[in-house]
């Protein structure tokens, strides 16, 4: 275990006693026990006003999202996530190669059902994700503000843009076929029709900087076109992604369609790029010096590849490039009647 909890956890409230931070019951019991004692003592004793413990913050255990479940990393590793100033926020699981392998298995298992679902249903589910995201907007805004170091107002704006992005892609599910395919003119007595179909399992390295808007901007187009995803979060800013998993889990999205791994893209990228059961790779979050090796590994199995634009502006209109990146074109020749 190369990375462990820091010795001190600045995130814990100073008034909580050591060892009780994760256990809300202990202080509660103490408080209940203390009440009758104070009443019996009456006013004569006039004890010093005991510090009344406020509601204890239950520290959240962030976990991976694999096949619709929330497991810890198979390796048992975690790493400390800090905010932009270096203050400890939480421990996130540090996913291993085996977690990536399990995620691919889950994504492959989910693929027939998700790619076979009607475009209309996929759109409804993506829209529902936006609804669920909106109802937890404040939580996401707080996490984005902590992760990216932006003001609360700016974070709220980013969350609103994220919701817009989901809705925008939700609308594309039943339109991309018309844009990406069509009837082709051919010299012969045939109808010739091309339709785009989902590629399969897409491994996505999420952008390192934009923890929520960037994440959704790379994930939503993969889902909208009927692919399933194995997503590696931003290494320094994984928390909004791990919270997004809770939204996905309650949005009718079938288990395994999205699998979210927090960890080091330098560790998880190579096994995913070389994995024979991964059909496409989005290199957005890869470090520039690693991207080339990942491309070479991906070429061995003829994966589709999305090369990132280094200056991609997540707030600008996304266009169709990402929707088109993970599609296969099926062309059918059909004889015309004489």
């Amino acid at each position, binding site marked *: 275990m190369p990375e462990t909890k820091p010795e001190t956890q600045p995130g814990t409230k100073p008034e909580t006693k050591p060892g009780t931070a994760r256990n809300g019951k202990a202080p509660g019991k103490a408080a209940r026990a203390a009440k009758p004692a104070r009443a019996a003592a009456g006013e004569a004793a006039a004890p010093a006003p005991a510090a009344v413990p406020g509601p204890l913050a239950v520290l959240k255990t962030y976990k991976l999202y694999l096949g619709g479940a929330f497991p810890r990393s198979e390796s048992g590793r975690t790493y400390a996530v800090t905010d932009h100033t270096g203050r400890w926020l939480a421990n996130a699981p540090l996913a291993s190669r085996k977690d990536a*392998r399990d995620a*691919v298995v889950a994504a*492959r298992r989910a693929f027939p059902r998700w790619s076979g679902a009607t475009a209309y249903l996929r759109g409804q589910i993506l829209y529902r994700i936006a609804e669920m995201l909106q109802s937890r907007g404040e939580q996401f805004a707080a996490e984005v503000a902590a992760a990216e170091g932006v003001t609360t107002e700016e974070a709220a704006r980013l969350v609103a843009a994220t919701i817009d992005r989901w809705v925008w892609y939700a609308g594309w599910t039943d339109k991309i076929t018309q844009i990406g395919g069509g009837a082709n003119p051919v010299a012969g007595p045939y109808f010739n029709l091309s339709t785009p179909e989902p590629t399969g399992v897409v491994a996505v390295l999420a952008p390192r900087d934009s923890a929520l808007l960037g994440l959704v901007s790379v994930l939503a187009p993969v889902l909208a076109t009927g692919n399933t995803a194995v997503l590696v979060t931003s290494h320094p800013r994984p928390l909004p992604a791990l919270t997004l998993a809770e939204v996905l889990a309650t949005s009718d999205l079938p288990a395994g369609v999205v699998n979210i791994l927090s960890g080091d893209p330098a560790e998880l990228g190579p*096994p995913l790029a*070389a*994995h*024979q*059961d*991964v059909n496409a790779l989005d290199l957005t979050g890869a470090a520039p010096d690693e991207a080339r090796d990942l491309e070479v*590994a991906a070429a*061995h199995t003829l994966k589709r590849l999305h090369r990132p634009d280094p200056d991609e502006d997540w707030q600008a209109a996304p266009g169709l490039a990402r929707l088109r990146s993970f599609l296969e074109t099926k062309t059918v020749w059909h004889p015309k009647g004489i």
Partner: protein
Amino acid sequence: MPDTATFPGPGASNAAWRAFLHGLPGVDAVGLQERAARLGTRSIKESAKGFAIDTAISMIDLTTLEGADTPGRVRALCAKAAGPEPTDRSVPRAAAVCVYPDLVGTAVEALRGTGVAVASVATAFPSGRAPLEAKLVDTRAAVAAGAAEIDMVIDRGAFLAGDYLAVFEEIAAIREACGDAHLKVILETGELVTYDNIRRACWLAMLAGADFVKTSTGKVAVNATPANTLLLLLAVRDFLAATGRQVGVKAAGGIRTSKDAVKYLVLVNETVGPAWLTPRWFRLGASSLLNDLLMQRHKLRTGSYSGPDYVTVD
């Protein structure tokens, strides 16, 4: 361990069988399961894993026992058993191909000269509910068609009703009908209810002349488990010590991943030792397991994970 002198012979009465089988030591169910689970936690990595995967491949009875089996499907399976990985001749061949009696001829023809044996289920597989004459005809037909191994099912109804003599005589009769072919006796452990019954059925089969004892048909809810396989291994070990005759074990049904297969090999090695760690004495009855073993083998050799697109669909 039972004393050799007390074994009921072929002429023994049902009461004598009952006295003997119920005199076998009882099975500590919790202890058995814990032991099997503990052995399943052994970490087998790198070169040991490579050895285990190749050993497991060489022990597979590649099985297709469906109502929809066609000669074409059997031929495809035979090709796969003879050369599991067409692009890599270092992959060992499977031990046998296991089919229904009417397809034995097809399999024998497809496997001629490959060294892969043809096994056939017989005796009204999987239920075993047929008159003895029908079972004997079934068996003789399979042997005549060229099956080198016969997988018979015991009459669980008679066994559970306590008619041990009938079960014994049936196995002995089939043994005779097999001639030179190896006889594997399927105990169908999932229907025997208790571990004590599994131990009794195993001893009954071994005394009746089984060359192999096999856990299950693969057609019921509970098939091979590490615990019931461990129990069979303990029984064949005791039987060898008591009689000097070695009996093989076949775990069948529900073994789908390499990890599971390696666990069974650990059970064999730790219980009965390397003497059983060959295809002659231990088999894995499976169909989808082979693909997973091939994918794991690929991972071990190249370092990258394989996928189902790179192995045959049965």
